C-alpha cells in the first residue's frame, strides 16, 4: 500500500474533486449536444472518462502527489511506459485507426489508454526539469548573497 504524506493526500482529494466536477460537466454537455463524435454514445462516455483520468494523473504527477514517499518513480515510470508504448505503436504502425467516417473509431479507446499511461512518465520528466532549473536558480541566489 502506498504511503502518502498529508500534503499529497490533500492534493489527491483536491484534484480528485476537480476531476469529478470536470467529468460530470463533460458528460452533461455531451448528453445535451446533439452530435455523435465517436463510434457510439457508450464509446463517447468511455473516452470522456479516460480524458478526465489523464487530467487527474497529470495534475497529481506534476504536483508530486502521484508517487508515494517510498516509491521508486524511475522504476514505476519504466513500468507504465511499456503498455503505453505498446498501445500507441498500434496506431503509429497503422494496425488501428483513430478516425473512421469523421468520428473517433470504436478502437480509439486504446489510444486514450496509451496516452494515460504515457502521460505519467512525460509529466514526471517535465517536472524533474522544472525542479532542477528552480534548484539551480535557488543556488545562484543563495551564493550571490
Amino acid at each position, binding site marked *: 500500500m502506498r504511503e502518502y*504524506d*498529508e*500534503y*499529497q493526500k490533500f492534493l489527491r482529494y483536491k484534484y480528485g474533486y476537480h476531476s469529478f466536477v470536470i467529468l460530470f460537466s463533460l458528460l452533461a454537455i455531451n448528453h445535451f449536444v446533439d452530435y455523435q463524435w465517436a463510434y457510439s454514445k457508450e464509446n463517447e462516455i468511455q473516452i470522456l472518462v479516460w480524458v478526465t483520468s489523464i487530467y487527474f494523473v497529470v495534475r497529481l504527477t506534476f*504536483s*508530486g*502527489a502521484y508517487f508515494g*514517499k517510498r516509491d521508486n518513480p524511475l522504476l514505476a515510470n519504466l513500468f507504465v511506459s511499456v503498455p503505453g508504448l505498446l498501445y500507441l505503436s498500434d496506431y503509429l504502425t497503422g494496425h488501428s485507426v483513430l478516425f473512421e467516417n469523421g468520428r473517433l473509431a470504436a478502437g480509439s479507446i486504446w489510444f486514450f489508454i496509451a496516452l494515460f499511461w504515457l502521460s505519467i512518465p512525460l509529466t514526471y520528466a517535465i517536472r524533474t526539469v522544472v525542479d532542477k532549473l528552480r534548484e539551480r536558480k535557488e543556488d545562484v541566489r543563495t551564493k550571490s548573497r
Partner: protein
Amino acid sequence: MTKNMRLKAERAKWGMSQQDLADAVDVTRQTISAIERGDYNPTINLCIRICRTLDVTLNDLFWEENEDEGI
C-alpha cells in the same frame, strides 16, 4: 497565505536542503516547498516534527504577528 521565510531561514541555518528536511520529518520535498511558499498550512503534528528537527519552538516558525490584533 504568506510565505514562510522563517522556515527557509532556519533550514538554511542548519545547512539543510528541502529534501534533507523532508526526509527528517518523513514527508516529500514538495510538501516542504509548499509550506515555505505559503501554499499549504501543515497540521500541528507536522509543525511539531519540523520544530523538533530544527530545534526551535512553534512560535519561532509558525506564529504570525498581526499588528491590528491586540492579544
